[in-house]
């Protein structure tokens, strides 16, 4: 019987090695897999390349992973936000690398990675500094930039409900980058608020089919980033 459930976040992330590339779902706090990130902090793997739209807020979750010195490089679209201070300090100190990718190009590069499309063209960034050094191609009279697919060794994902086969549904705008990251990682690790029976998700409503999921942990009452910030919580 196929059963992708694993007992704890610690066991689910246990094989992430130094130097691994890790996609982390979420846009701001929506869909951010905090418990998996904290398990990765406990594990201590270093020299990571992390792909996320942002760089975390406050001093828990992704910000804590960065603050703990485990991230060598961030690939993201927007490393600033009202509550982000950990990344800016490290960046200004030259202690972390940054690759800025426009949000739509980031999403599409990840989708391409998952869909077996090694490269594609987009009009985004044409004529801007972010297109420098990239191949420009004129197609039907308009210039486009060539962008390469983005894949990762692991993806850390948060969803709402899941079944043992790895079928997932999300909560509202917590969907964001999670479904495409599930597709683009060699090993996709998911925390679900609830694991339901195998026929508990209507086949018409599945957002991430189980084929894209490798490991599944139930985290019934996940931490909420904005509450952690309000409470000044610092992990670990």
């Amino acid at each position: 019987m196929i059963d992708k459930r694993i007992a704890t976040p610690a066991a689910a992330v246990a094989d992430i090695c130094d130097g691994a590339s890790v996609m982390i779902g979420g846009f701001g706090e929506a869909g951010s897999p905090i418990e998996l990130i904290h398990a990765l902090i406990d594990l201590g793997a270093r020299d990571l390349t992390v792909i996320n739209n942002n760089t975390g807020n406050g001093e828990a979750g992704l910000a804590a992973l960065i603050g703990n010195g485990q991230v060598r490089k961030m690939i993201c679209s927007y490393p600033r936000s009202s509550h982000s201070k950990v990344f800016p300090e490290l960046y200004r100190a030259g202690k972390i690398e940054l690759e800025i990718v426009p949000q739509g190009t980031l999403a599409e590069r990840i989708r391409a990675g998952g869909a077996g499309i090694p490269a594609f063209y987009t009009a985004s960034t044409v004529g801007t500094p972010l297109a420098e050094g990239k191949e420009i191609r004129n197609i039907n009279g308009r210039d486009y930039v060539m962008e390469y697919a983005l894949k990762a060794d692991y993806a850390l994902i948060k969803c709402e409900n899941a079944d043992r086969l790895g079928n997932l549904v999300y909560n509202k705008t917590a969907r964001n980058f999670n479904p495409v990251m599930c597709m683009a990682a060699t090993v996709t690790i998911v925390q679900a608020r609830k694991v339901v029976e195998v026929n508990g998700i209507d086949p018409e409503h599945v957002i991430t089919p189980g084929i894209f999921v490798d490991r599944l942990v139930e985290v019934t009452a996940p931490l909420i980033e904005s509450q952690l910030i309000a409470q000044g919580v610092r992990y670990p």
Partner: protein
Amino acid sequence: MTTNAPQIEGWSREQMAELVAADIPDGSYVNLGIGIPELVTKFVPDGREFIYHTENGLLGMGPAPAPGYEDPELINAGKKAVTANPGASYFHHADSFAMIRGGHIDVCVLGAMQVSSNGDLANWSTGAADAIPAVGGAMDLVAGVKTILVITQHTTKTGLPKLVGQCSYPLTGINVVTRVYSDLAIIDITPDGFQVHKLAPGVSFKQVCDKTDAPLLPSKES
């Protein structure tokens, strides 16, 4: 161009937003940038319905929820709590930017640091050495949305023109802006450069010229 002249009383932020809203056709799919653009939702003309897209995965975005009813997983691109209107839909980021990149969003209203007379937009970075670059979805929006409207003060807080012959800040996109709504005037980007569409009450064409760092054509009606 003067940078030390006394402040001219033009349109307020709300009036600028109202002028933008008046120009958006009924039934449009609209993406609003953070800041003044968000005010547009308050001025939808009677009888029109706009459907708001937020690039983090929601079409049919509604207003902020009543206090206490926030869902930390129902937010907009500015990461503020919002609601979903009847007929809304959720989708992932790749699908969301397919809407943007594929030309399905009718109107995007954005703020600006600089707009050039050929419609180049700079709104993501000062290019300063210590600045942390952060582009978000702006480059995708300007490259993909059918009509890009800019809503901005005519000059910076220190009085420097934002409408320029050529942007000195790093670009967000080239030839993308259709029209600029400033506190002093509505200005079109035409093949001949900036052209006044409408002046704010009590503001003269010369006053706008003085605060614009590029040639400015008068309104066709004037």
